[in-house]
């Protein structure tokens, strides 16, 4: 059974915020999953009889199963965390991508310089490590792969204090590179990162079969049907990477969330928006909640807009947006299997231009006066 915590609130982090103090303060910690209430309760029993409970709501969902096979990778390296940690310290903190170039005798790590800002003006850094620095090194021929350094840094900050060895497995550029750490008795962590495929065309992205979203969503008319999973990546050049699985995962949850709060208010303790303005505000808040503007959330928003158009304007088409997005919707349904790359952020501004204008006034939209649900606490009485 897979559960996904409500990403919007990053509540999970709140519970474990002061990790340094936890050792000294917390005596026991109990995690309880309550399937009925859709809640994860974190009970911390602290010293001096203090009892802290965090209730984190979650959403049941389908997870993407990442398809990879460590053992079928051509090249593999096992290294002490410290070696990699010290190696990556030589790269600037803002460095996004690095290229790992391994020959049978040495490993070179270079920072990846984008062509966009002038490559002649950028710093080039290269680090060389000897093969005998590693616990195991099986590189038959030279090969190089480029991947996102930020993700690796987070893995290293996790594994370095515990002094665990890290295994790298990779094949050709384009196939994922797999970092795995394990402490045989307690845990195993596997990071599957996308690698840059050489000379890939932006428009040709490999498609991922879109999963059905089940569970609580089934009675929601908006999300019934296929949700597209859009490859997205946290790096600055999203179009060139194949899906970075962790991020795609996140996108679905975010997109579900919008609809969740729209259709099932009780679940998230939010009132059913009684006016269009509230929904638009929610969408706007969604946007400012620090999401990468990936297509999936964009498309979900578009679909929502469409349904709004239908529900609130009595079928009237006074808005430009529903008309546009419903045609986009049909287009999407036809092309299930083909997932386009992330569109530029300019598109969202184009489609929802009116909403972002400072002079936007929800009152001007027809259907605004039709109230579907009264205010629960009416102050005027």
């Amino acid at each position, binding site marked *: 059974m897979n559960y996904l915590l409500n990403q919007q609130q990053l509540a999970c982090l709140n519970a474990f915020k002061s990790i340094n103090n936890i050792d000294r303060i917390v005596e026991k910690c109990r995690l309880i999953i309550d399937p009925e209430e859709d809640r994860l309760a974190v009970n911390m029993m602290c010293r001096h009889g203090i009892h802290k409970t965090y209730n984190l709501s979650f959403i049941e969902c389908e997870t993407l199963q990442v398809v990879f096979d460590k053992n079928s990778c051509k090249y593999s390296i096992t290294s*002490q965390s410290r*070696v990699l940690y*010290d*190696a990556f*310290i*030589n790269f*600037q*903190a803002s460095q996004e991508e690095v290229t790992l170039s391994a020959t049978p005798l040495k490993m070179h790590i270079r920072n990846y310089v984008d062509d966009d800002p002038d*490559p*002649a*003006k*950028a*710093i*080039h*850094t*290269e*680090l*060389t*490590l*000897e093969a*005998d*620095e590693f616990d195991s090194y099986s590189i038959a021929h030279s090969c190089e792969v480029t991947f996102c350094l930020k993700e690796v840094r987070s893995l290293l900050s996790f594994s370095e204090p515990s002094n665990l060895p890290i295994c790298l497995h990779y094949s050709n550029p384009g196939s994922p590179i797999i970092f795995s750490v394990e402490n045989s008795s307690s845990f195993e962590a596997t990071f599957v990162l996308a690698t840059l495929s050489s000379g890939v065309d932006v428009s040709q992205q490999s498609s991922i079969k879109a999963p059905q979203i089940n569970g609580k969503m089934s009675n929601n008319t908006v999300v019934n049907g296929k949700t597209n999973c859009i490859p997205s990546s946290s790096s600055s050049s999203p179009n060139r990477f194949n899906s970075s699985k962790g991020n795609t995962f996140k996108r679905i949850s975010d997109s579900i969330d919008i609809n969740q709060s729209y259709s099932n208010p009780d679940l998230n303790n939010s009132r059913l928006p009684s006016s269009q303005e509230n929904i638009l505000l929610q969408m706007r808040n969604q946007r400012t909640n620090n999401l990468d503007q990936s297509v999936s959330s964009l498309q979900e928003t578009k679909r929502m807009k469409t349904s709004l158009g239908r529900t609130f304007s009595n079928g009237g088409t006074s808005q430009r947006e529903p008309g546009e997005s419903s045609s986009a919707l049909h287009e999407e349904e036809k092309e299930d299997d083909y997932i386009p790359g992330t569109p530029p952020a300019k598109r969202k501004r184009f489609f929802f231009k009116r909403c972002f204008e400072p002079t936007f006034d929800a009152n001007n939209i027809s259907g605004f006066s039709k109230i579907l649900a009264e205010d629960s606490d009416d102050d005027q009485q």
Partner: protein
Amino acid sequence: MKFRGKMIENQCIRQFSQLVTLIARLAKVCVIRITSSKIYFIISEMGGSNPGMWAELEQGHFFNEFDMEGVSSENNEIFLELVPDKLAKSLNSLKSSQSTKSLKIKLTKKHSPCLTFEIELPSLSSRSRLVVHDIPITLIPRRLWHLYQEPAMPSYEASIYLPPLKQLRHVVERLKSLSAHATLSANHKGTFIISVATDTVDVSTYFKNLAMPAWGNNTERPENVEDLHSATVDIKKLAQFLQGDQVNPSRVICNIHGGKTVHLFLLHDNITLQYFLPAINTGQI
């Protein structure tokens, strides 16, 4: 034109990277002048409204191996310009716990002229790890060299040895939140004052009984010894400079030319750093 230098002493490497970090805080662009005896870091004043900096490093102390060939035999110097911020970030790794075996600096031409820093780090295997950073630079043509000459020691009215920079730094950090300008004053009796004046409050910190450097021509000043000579400067720039106490100067001299400039002179065994803060005319005295 070529340049190649190698540093082996850990302490020198660390000092060098600290100096670069300080410079990175002070300006966006820095000029490096390489001669056969010294290396200079120059931040140009650009018309007198921005602070300027002039740092000199004794090449002999820092480098174990040093080889340079200037533009021509008459002008045996190299002037180049780079962005110190990038350099500072790359050298960040030198400050971490790992000790550096050596630092080699070379003038190279990869896809564009670069200053290449090759850092040798200790490793688990028999051979060391090598990190190579190529920092892009622009070479400055000879006709512009006159812009980057050593600034003449400005005529000053008061000159004083400053108290430990750490103390000053704490004071200035606190005063920073009160106002954008600070007034530095000194007299010939050994008093140094930092003050900030706002609408609601005036705050002054007095440092008394400080030593005064004995410049040759200073002894004939007939003025009243207690007279204060002041200049008002941008407090942020002052604060940035004071963060350079990492360089651990042995002495810092402050020369004030009333209403015109504040000249800070950091003396260290092998580095001298001069910082010129132009005075701001706030209309108040």
